[in-house]
């Protein structure tokens, strides 16, 4: 069965500092990996995904993520955090091939960027 772990419930960072949100996964085959962000009272917004190819993936709003197969990780990063990046971040995985094509989400990490 596929699973995702986000080991930190909350990450605090000062504005302008680098931001990292950690994600590790477990699959039986090869993964498709996704990051979503959720602002208060809004649905999830897609940030980026890893399907194949270059391990460093660039996405929306200056975010990027690095796929590391040996460490089964897909950490989200931003070189310089903004106060507006404060939100709830979810990592998600699909196992390939996966029965039912189901996307499994982690428990989420709350990011608080302080001015």
């Amino acid at each position: 069965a596929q699973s995702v772990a986000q080991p930190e419930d909350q990450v605090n960072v000062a504005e302008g500092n680098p931001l990292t949100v950690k994600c590790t996964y477990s699959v039986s085959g090869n993964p498709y990996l996704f990051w979503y962000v959720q602002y208060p009272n809004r649905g999830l917004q897609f940030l980026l995904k890893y399907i194949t190819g270059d391990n460093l993936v660039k996405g929306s709003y200056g975010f990027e993520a690095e796929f590391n197969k040996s460490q089964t990780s897909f950490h989200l990063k931003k070189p310089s955090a903004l106060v507006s990046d404060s939100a709830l971040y979810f990592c998600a995985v699909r196992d390939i091939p996966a029965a039912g094509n189901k996307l499994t989400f982690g428990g989420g990490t709350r990011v608080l960027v302080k001015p």
Partner: protein
Amino acid sequence: EAGVAQSPRYKIIEKRQSVAFWCNPISGHATLYWYQQILGQGPKLLIQFQNNGVVDDSQLPKDRFSAERLKGVDSTLKIQPAKLEDSAVYLCASSLRGDSYNEQFFGPGTRLTVL
């Protein structure tokens, strides 16, 4: 391009009552998903439709939950009768196809409170 629409945004009911949620996906998106997001957790897939057929409903509590997508466009999720543990945000999402690499686009969600 209009996003995924959901209504109502908020609903408060008493246990054992019935409730229905509506979702209109992005135009042209063949795949529609319903998720349950309990406070402090990541979204959990309840049911996935491909056009008007069910692809995966393995995590749908079928004794009380039902969903339909009769014309392959909008969808309704119903709970009858509701329990206290059904209090959650119900998210609808859609994607162009059900392929593993397609990202999903989420609506704002319906926050259900069962008293």
